């Protein structure tokens, strides 16, 4: 049932070993795998299931519950648009729509060149600077639709280097 490379199997086993002492290591394991690979496909979940004894269906449930985890590869730059209440009333929907228009993808999708993914987030705890956008950990305050083009350009320039 596994179609993973030996190197991947080794690395995932290593990640599982890190939390061998924990009583409920699942979230930490998944979190490390997400950070390492950018996504957690079913084959990987099956391997984690074998190692932890947690049923695959339960792991799949966790992966599909939290928007931080992804089943498909994400782009090099993940544009996290906060749609929490504060950001939303400050116009976050227009911001995410602008990103969608300019990149030609919907929230949750990745551009064909693999450079950008748009994620719709629910409150990243930056209500004071709403609407907030977080790209690979860097937070942009008070984003307006007009500033979207500049942000995309910034990463396109980086990405092409």
């Amino acid at each position, binding site marked *: *049932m596994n179609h993973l490379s030996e190197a991947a199997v080794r690395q995932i086993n290593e990640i599982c070993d890190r939390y061998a002492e924990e009583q409920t290591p699942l979230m930490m394991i998944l979190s490390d795998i997400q950070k390492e690979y950018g996504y957690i496909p*079913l084959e990987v*979940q099956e391997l984690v299931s074998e190692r932890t004894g*947690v*049923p*695959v*269906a*339960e*792991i*799949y*449930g966790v992966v*599909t*519950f939290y928007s931080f985890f992804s089943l498909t590869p994400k782009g090099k730059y993940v544009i996290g648009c906060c749609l929490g209440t504060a950001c939303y009333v400050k116009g976050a929907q227009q911001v995410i729509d602008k990103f969608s228009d300019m990149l030609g993808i919907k929230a949750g999708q990745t551009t064909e060149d693999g450079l950008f993914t748009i994620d719709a987030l629910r409150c990243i705890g930056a209500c004071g600077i709403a609407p907030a956008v977080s790209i690979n950990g860097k937070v942009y305050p008070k984003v307006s639709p007009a500033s979207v083009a500049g942000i995309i350009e910034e990463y396109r320039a980086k990405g092409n280097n």
Partner: protein
Amino acid sequence: MSKVNIKIEGIPFEVDAGLTILEAARQCGFEIPSLCAFNHGECSKASCRVCLVEATGARGLVASCVYPVSEGMEIKISSPKAVAARRVSVELLLSNHNRNCQECDKNGKCELLHVAKLTGAKEERFQGEQTPVTRDFLTPTIVRDTSKCVLCGRCVERCKNAHGIGVLGFENRGFKTIVAPAENRSFIQSPCIMCGQCINVCPTGALMEASEIDRVDQAMAQGKYVVVQTAPAVRAALGEEFGMKIGTPVTGKMVAALRRLGYKKVFDTNFGADLTIMEEANELLHRVKTGGVLPMITSCSPGWVNYAEYYYPDQLSHLSTCKSPHEMFGAILKTYYAKKIGVDPKDMFVVSIMPCSCKKYEKNRPEMEEEGGLRDVDAVLTTRELGRVIRRAGIRFDKLPDEDFDQDIVHDYSGAGVIFGVTGGVMEAALRTAHYVLTGKEREGIIFKEVRGFENIREAEFELGGQKIKVAVTSGMRGAKVLLDQIREGTSPYTFIEVMGCPGGCINGGGQPYVREVFLPNEDSDIMDTYKEKRAQALYSEDERQTVRQSHRNEQVQDLYKEFLGEPNSHLAHELLHTSYNPNRPRFD
């Protein structure tokens, strides 16, 4: 146990500390409407919000199925606020529910409709978007329809509790949440063993057996020679479909009903069970004598066989090669019996009435096909489906006379065959025969009490004719895993192991009538704890009534060997009565 003083509707009561409000109220003579809670907390996720009540010390209304009682607590079940909240909870569940109730096989046993009645949720107050629907019809045993699901999680818990497998889980989030195997796959593409325990606990029609009633109707309409056989556990539970008390044996009425349904012949799978013992006991003795693979494990339960193939593909040589009793009987009906009565086997259609949903899958296995594409068994109906067919035909089950199985060359059965339906029964039947073969005489008192009961793993040791035989019995895959891990590690002390897929054996199979306190007002309040024993008792009592109680003393089985098969484990017996296992059985797409 320490006690606490509470008040319900202003009336003081003293109850055990640590109880939930729901349990405490029940002890005090109140039944709070509840939906997701099941079987004394086997599943209590408080997900449905149907059991809301007012309780002092709590903020807002509380879900009584999980909220514990405390000293001085005052509980209000009938306050306008609590009554309205419970009704709204049910109305919200109904608003996202496929209310095409007449198409649903749970019709009449639906717990959602039951709480709708209790809470007075009549109007369609909330209308709007519905959760995207998945209907899984690919699996020949279980049909999953998320449009009927109330997300109670009982199936998720049962799969984990009974088997430690956990095929089902909650997927996605919020409004899009569904209960499904990982990736929302079909059961047949998941590590499911198809035991059907999830069907037994589902409160609605979200999980149902894949009905084969239409297939049987068609065969009847085509004028086929339709023969029916009934598994032992069916007679111990069929009466429940018609309001009889749990544990009422209904063998005679069941036969009478089947005869009225137009079957040409009505036989008992127990004949096949006796045949299984002849083959299996001889296989075991052969393995012991020749240093074959031990321990040998029974192979009657298709859920267990699925588990072994999927989870322990390296240990399949431990499984007996015997087909299950109804498959053996099917093979004999289409060869030996068809020839005797002069019916072309191609025109014969064998229907098995089973307590099991997995038998529907088993009968489709490629190994269960004889020459010329003939299947050993053509259709499998569960006990519940038989109930439906009997009602459809307008038969008053309780008014039926007791009738006998058709008296023909394959109707005899022993008490050993009857107890196949309960965990430990196959082991006991095999021991009765092994005792005779190894010691030359019957065991005093016949029975082997040591292997009876409902403990998860039971073991016993016998000395039979100088041979020491250590045996183990389990049901549900939690116990099977323990025993198989021992085998894998080379530490298993056993000669012979019986494994059944469903906890308690076939009497609690995935095709048996639903056991729900709310629909059983005349049963004792502990019925959820005792129903398995009551059904088992129905089988043990039939065993006691039989004049022949050992498989090797079934004269018709002896005649079958003399006239047709030769001897147990003969070449022909192997061809017709034995099977093989596939460690690489394709499951995933």
